[in-house]
């Protein structure tokens, strides 16, 4: 438990995944939790963003999350970063933490988080959920294998990838639980990398696929091309809604 009490975890995206993830981290005894988001609470969020209630609509997500978590866990050290994870700040921000949990709703931030964590040698657990489907994968501090070993680059067309596509509330709860389970394993120094877990909320079926480092991976391959954070790489990407 000392590892957890001493651990500093950054949650990027305080939405349907980030809310239950932060709550589960706190309940698991993680001592310091950073929250990164710049959004406000909307009524349409409430069915799945479980740190927020009716009275939070229109307020900053971070302020509402701090109130909610602070009341339940008075000894928890909460740090807030009321900003989107930007290319300019990403390396500095993730470098302040021992582990990152990424649950954002856009590919630009997913790849930025993956790259920044790899370059800063910070473990990261990525999670996503759209409609009934969720996916989770963990990447260790050595960054091999990494997110780009599974998904080489962001989609350029034809893939639903934004919050507007809709997501089922219970699905994000399940997916965030897996995300935190993997994060706690990494904090506890257990190797859970190299597996990609998917969950289908329509059938309640989990699937676990293994993956290895790709030799030609741009981030962790033998001739990796990504050596620094280049803002132009993370320009807004199109989505189908």
């Amino acid at each position, binding site marked *: 438990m000392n590892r957890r009490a001493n651990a500093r975890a950054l949650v990027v*995206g305080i*939405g*349907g*995944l*980030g809310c239950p993830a932060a709550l589960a981290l706190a309940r698991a005894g993680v001592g310091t939790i950073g929250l990164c988001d710049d959004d406000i609470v909307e009524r349409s969020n409430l069915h799945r963003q479980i740190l927020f209630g009716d009275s939070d609509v229109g307020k900053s997500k971070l302020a509402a999350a701090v109130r909610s978590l602070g009341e339940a866990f008075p000894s928890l050290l909460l740090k807030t970063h009321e900003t989107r994870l930007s290319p300019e700040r990403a390396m500095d921000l993730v470098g302040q933490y021992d582990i990152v949990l990424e*649950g*954002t*709703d*856009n*590919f630009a931030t*997913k790849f930025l988080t993956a790259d920044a964590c790899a370059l800063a040698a910070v473990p990261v657990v990525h*999670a*996503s*959920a*759209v*409609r*009934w*489907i969720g*996916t989770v994968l963990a990447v260790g501090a050595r960054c091999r294998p990494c997110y780009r070993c*599974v*998904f*080489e*680059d*962001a*989609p350029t067309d*034809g*893939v*639903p*990838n*934004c*919050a507007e*596509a809709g*997501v089922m509330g219970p699905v*994000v709860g399940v*997916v965030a639980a897996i995300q935190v389970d993997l994060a706690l394993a990494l904090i506890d120094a257990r190797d859970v990398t190299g597996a*990609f877990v*998917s969950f*289908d909320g*329509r*059938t309640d079926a989990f*699937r*676990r*696929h*293994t*993956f*290895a480092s*790709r030799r030609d991976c741009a981030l962790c391959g033998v001739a990796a091309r990504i050596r620094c954070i280049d803002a132009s790489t993370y320009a807004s990407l199109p*989505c189908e809604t």
Partner: protein
Amino acid sequence: METIVRIPTPLRTLTGGADEVSATGGTVGEAIDDLERKHPGIRDRLLDDKGVRRFVNIYVGEEDVRFLDGLKTVLRQGDQISIVPAIAGG
């Protein structure tokens, strides 16, 4: 050989909502060709002129075909193909 292919939510508009379909072929590539015949448009969602699209994973069982023999990966009796695209949301 007939193989079960698991279809992710984003592609079910092409399979009439089915989350599993069958495809015939001795390799992954042949199975995808058969999928295209039965569900036109699906091939373009999975492949480009270089092979499997960079944001899509195709698994045979638990193994990513990138780490097997790509589209030439031989299918055996009982194999199942899973298609897992990148998604972002939460």
